């Protein structure tokens, strides 16, 4: 027999384990030894038999009717636990439904709020856009109808001889517009770009698109003795005008 098995059997752990008096550690140790060593298992089984025999010596007739009481309370216990189980299931289902619907509504509320913000922003943008357009149309109307308005015909030079544009300048209302009516064809990688020199600084007025811009009045920033330029720039426009590519200028 292994020394440690002997030591274990000599200790009282197994007897304590038999009665359920062991601490957690002792309990684990006892269970381990019982599983691992046949001699411990045998002793344990023997102890169990002896305990039963010993306890039987003291057997005492149970009183009449106690069995019925016990059976009744056991059944009640079972019903109670079944009931509890049922309630627990019902409660869990209810909680799950509640959680699910809460999440659904929260989610819906969130997306509605997002949509609301989007729509509001869109409306603001449209309103702003509309105001600007209306203002633009009003100014165009003023410029075109005002007797003080001067009309300048602009013709292109160099490779843009076919470029035709009309500029309307009203020094009284301080408004200026240009209508580029004919744009010559340019190689694909080139485009026309408009500029205005205002107070010594060149302001980019954008790229003239070939078809869209016909019959459309473009507002020019007004300044006394300002100069407008049209240049040929690489496709997509440039950040500053290429001076040698100036094809038209409008002094107003």
């Amino acid at each position, binding site marked *: 027999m292994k020394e440690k098995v002997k030591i274990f059997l000599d200790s*009282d752990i197994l007897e304590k384990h038999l009665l359920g008096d062991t601490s957690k550690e002792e309990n684990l140790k006892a269970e381990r030894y019982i599983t691992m060593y046949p001699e411990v298992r045998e002793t344990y089984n023997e102890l169990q038999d002896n*305990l*039963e025999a*010993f306890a*039987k010596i003291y*057997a005492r*007739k149970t009183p009449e009717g106690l069995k019925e009481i016990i059976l009744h*309370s056991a*059944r009640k216990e079972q019903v109670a636990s079944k009931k509890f189980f049922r309630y627990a299931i019902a409660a869990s289902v209810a909680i799950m439904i509640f959680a699910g619907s809460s999440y659904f509504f929260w989610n819906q509320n969130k997306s509605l709020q997002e949509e609301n913000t989007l729509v509001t922003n869109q409306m603001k943008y449209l309103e702003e856009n509309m105001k600007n357009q209306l203002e633009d149309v009003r100014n165009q109307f003023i410029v075109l109808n005002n007797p003080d308005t001067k009309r300048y015909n602009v013709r292109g030079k160099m490779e843009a001889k076919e470029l035709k544009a009309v500029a309307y300048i009203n020094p009284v209302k301080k408004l200026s517009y240009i209508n580029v009516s004919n744009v010559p064809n340019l190689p694909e990688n080139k485009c026309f770009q408009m500029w205005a020199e205002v107070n010594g600084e060149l302001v980019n007025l954008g790229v003239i698109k070939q078809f869209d811009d016909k019959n459309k009045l473009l507002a020019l920033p007004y300044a006394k003795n300002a100069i407008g330029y049209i240049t040929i720039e690489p496709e997509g426009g440039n950040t500053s005008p290429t001076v040698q590519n100036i094809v038209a200028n409008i002094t107003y």
Partner: protein
Amino acid sequence: MSTLIEKHIVSLLAEKDDKAISLLYDNYGDTLFGVAYKVVRDEDLAQDVLQESFIKIWKKADSYDASKAKLFTWLFRITRNTAIDKLRSVNNKSDKEVQIDVSDVYNLGVNGIMPDFIDVQDNLEKIEPKYQIVLEALFFQGMTQQEASEELDIPLGTVKSRLKIGLRELGKIYGTTMTILLLIILLP
């Protein structure tokens, strides 16, 4: 107790079939009642203990592991611990010191003996009192071996050896009786 009934009860317990309680009561009720009575030494309290123990057994039914302990060992543990707890709570309630009357362990409680399985009265007499006292102190009075040593004024080593020998003696007697019983049954 045949292993077959034991197995049957265990499977009923696992299925939470309340027939298990009835069978347990029929097969172990008297013994467990005896255990409860031995600890609390009061008929009414013992009944309460037995009832509480059976409810615990019923509640814990699915935690019983046959590979860890025999059915009786498991039942005994629950009943014994319930009885010891009961005794403590009763003593606390009545504001009395938890004082185990040592002289009582010498009183072997002859009136409580139920010799319906084997002739236990004879067997009880066959175990020497010195072993019996130790066994009762440890099994029924919830004493640790240290406490038993102090209460009975016996060295700890002696308590240990008397417990071992007592149980072994008991096993021998039990074994012999069973052999005789078997021989009687088997012989034509």
